[in-house]
C-alpha cells in the first residue's frame, strides 16, 4: 500500500519535473488548452450574467397603462377605480406625469433636458400587477385594457424579458455545442502531446518493461502528464476569463455611467471554476488514456 502510494507520488513529482524541464513547450500547450477552454467558459459567464438581469425582470410581469395626454383628472381617477375593481388585477400604482418627469430627471441625469422642455411630454400612468402571470392571461388583460376609454397604450413589461429568455435558451445551446467542440480539441491536443512523450521516452519505457515494470507503472506518469496539463489549461482558462471580465467591467462602468446605471459582470463562481478545473483534468486524462492505449501497444514491447 505504501509502495503503491509512493509510486503515485513519484509519478506525480516526476511529471511536474518533466513539465518544468521543457518550459516553452509546456507553456504553449497549456496556452492552447487555456484558450480552448476560455472561449466556452467566457461565454458561459456572460450568459449567466445576462440571465441574472433578465430573471429579475421576468419574475414579476407587470402591465404599464398609459393614459391619453390631456385627459381630465376625474377620468384618470375613474380608470384607477376601474382597475382596482377588476378581478384580474392584484394591485395598481398610480404614477402622475409630473412624478414621472421628476424621476426621469433624477435617475437618468437628463435634468437639463427635462428643465428645458416647454411642457411635460409624459402621460399619466398606472403600473398594474396582475393576479395571473401566465402569458395568455397577461395578453388577454392587455387587450381588454387597451379598449378602455382614455387609455393610450398598454405595455407588457415582461415581454422583452421573455423574448430575452428565449434568446438565452438558444445561446445556452450554442455554449454547450462550443464546449463540446473545445472539449474534443482538448482531448486531441493531449492525445498528441502524450504520443510525443511516448516517442521521446521510448527507450526508458522499453528498458523499464524489460526489467519488470508492469503496464500500470508505465502508464501512470503519462496519465498524470495528461491530467496535469489539462488542469493547468483549466487554470489558464479561469485566469483568461477573470482578466477579460475585469477589463470588460472597466469599459462597462464607463458606458453604463452614461446611461445613469451601474452594470457589472460577475466573475465565474468558485463552484463553476472548480468544475472547469475538474473537467479540464478529466479530459486531459482521457486524451492521455486514449493515446497510451493506442501507442504503447504499437511500440510492440515484450
Amino acid at each position, binding site marked *: 500500500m505504501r509502495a503503491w502510494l509512493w509510486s503515485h507520488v513519484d509519478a506525480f513529482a516526476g511529471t511536474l519535473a518533466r513539465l518544468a524541464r521543457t518550459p516553452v513547450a509546456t507553456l504553449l500547450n497549456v496556452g492552447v488548452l487555456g484558450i480552448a477552454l476560455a472561449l466556452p467558459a467566457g461565454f458561459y459567464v456572460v450568459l449567466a450574467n445576462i440571465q441574472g438581469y433578465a430573471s429579475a425582470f421576468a419574475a414579476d410581469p407587470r402591465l404599464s397603462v398609459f393614459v391619453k395626454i390631456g385627459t381630465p383628472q376625474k377620468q384618470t381617477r375613474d380608470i384607477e377605480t376601474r382597475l382596482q375593481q377588476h378581478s384580474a388585477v392584484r394591485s395598481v400604482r398610480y404614477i402622475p406625469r409630473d412624478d414621472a418627469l421628476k424621476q426621469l430627471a433624477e435617475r437618468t441625469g437628463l435634468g437639463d433636458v427635462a428643465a428645458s422642455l416647454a411642457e411635460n411630454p409624459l402621460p399619466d400612468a398606472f403600473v398594474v400587477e396582475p393576479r395571473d402571470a401566465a402569458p395568455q392571461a397577461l395578453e388577454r388583460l392587455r387587450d381588454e385594457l387597451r379598449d378602455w376609454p382614455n387609455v393610450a397604450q398598454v405595455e407588457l413589461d415582461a415581454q422583452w424579458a421573455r423574448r430575452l429568455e428565449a434568446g438565452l435558451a438558444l445561446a445556452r445551446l450554442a455554449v454547450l455545442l462550443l464546449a463540446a467542440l473545445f472539449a474534443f480539441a482538448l482531448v486531441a491536443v493531449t492525445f498528441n502531446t502524450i504520443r510525443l512523450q511516448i516517442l521521446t521516452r521510448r527507450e526508458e519505457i522499453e528498458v*523499464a518493461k524489460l*526489467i*519488470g515494470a508492469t503496464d500500470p507503472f508505465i502508464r501512470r506518469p503519462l496519465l498524470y502528464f495528461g491530467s496535469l496539463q489539462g488542469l493547468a489549461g483549466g487554470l489558464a482558462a479561469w485566469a483568461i476569463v477573470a482578466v477579460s471580465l475585469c477589463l470588460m467591467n472597466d469599459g462597462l462602468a464607463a458606458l453604463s455611467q452614461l446611461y445613469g446605471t451601474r452594470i457589472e459582470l460577475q466573475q465565474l463562481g468558485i463552484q463553476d471554476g472548480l468544475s472547469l478545473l475538474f473537467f479540464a483534468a478529466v479530459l486531459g486524462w482521457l486524451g492521455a488514456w486514449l493515446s497510451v492505449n493506442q501507442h504503447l501497444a504499437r511500440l510492440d514491447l*515484450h
Partner: protein
Amino acid sequence: MISFSKVWKRYPGGLEALRNITLAIEPGEMVFITGHSGAGKSTFLKLAAAIERPTGGSIIVNGQNIGAMRPGAVPYLRRNFGLVFQDQKLLFDRNAFDNVMLPLHINGFDRREAARRVRAALDKVGLLAKEKALPITLSGGEQQRLAIARAVVHRPAILLADEPTGNLDAGHATDIGELFRSFHQVGVTVVIATHDEALAARLQPRVVALKSGAVVS
C-alpha cells in the same frame, strides 16, 4: 530453476534460431552458452526471460511455464532476473545513480533503502565515485559495469548476461569476469552467453555449446 524441454524457436520468415533444445539449469549454477554469432545464444536468453515466446516445447522458470503465461504475470517473473543486455540499454538522459535506481523504483522499494542499495551496487562494480556521472561520460568498461550494477541491484536469483565482455579489452573483461564469479559465489544462478574463451577458461563454468540452434555439447 530454468528448464528447457524440446524447445523450438522459429522466426517469421523461416529462420530456425533454436532447434529442439532440452536443458536444465540448477539453482546456483554458473552456465556459459557459447557458439558463433547466429548460433542462438541471444535467443536462448530471450526465451528464458520471457522476452520472446517459444514456437514449440516448454520452458519452466521458477516453476512457471513461460509459454502459457498471462501477459500480466510476465513483469513479476522478470523481477527474478538481472538482465545484462548486449547493447547495455543504459538511459542516457539520467546519471549513473538514477540508472541503477530504476529496477528498485519498479519494484517499489522504500526510498532510503533503495538509495542504500544503489550505492552498494555501485560500490561493488567500482563506480561509487561516479554516481553523478552521465553514462555518455563513462568509458566502455565503466558502462558495462554500470549495466551490471543495474542488473544486480535488486538482488535477483538469476543473472542473465548477453556478451558482457563483447566490446572490452582483456583487462576490463577480467574485472567483469571476477564480478560474475563473486555473484555466483553468493548463490546467484549465472547464465552468460559469450564466445569469450579466455573468460570460460578462467571461471570454469558448465559450458553449453550451440551450433545452428542445436546443442552440440
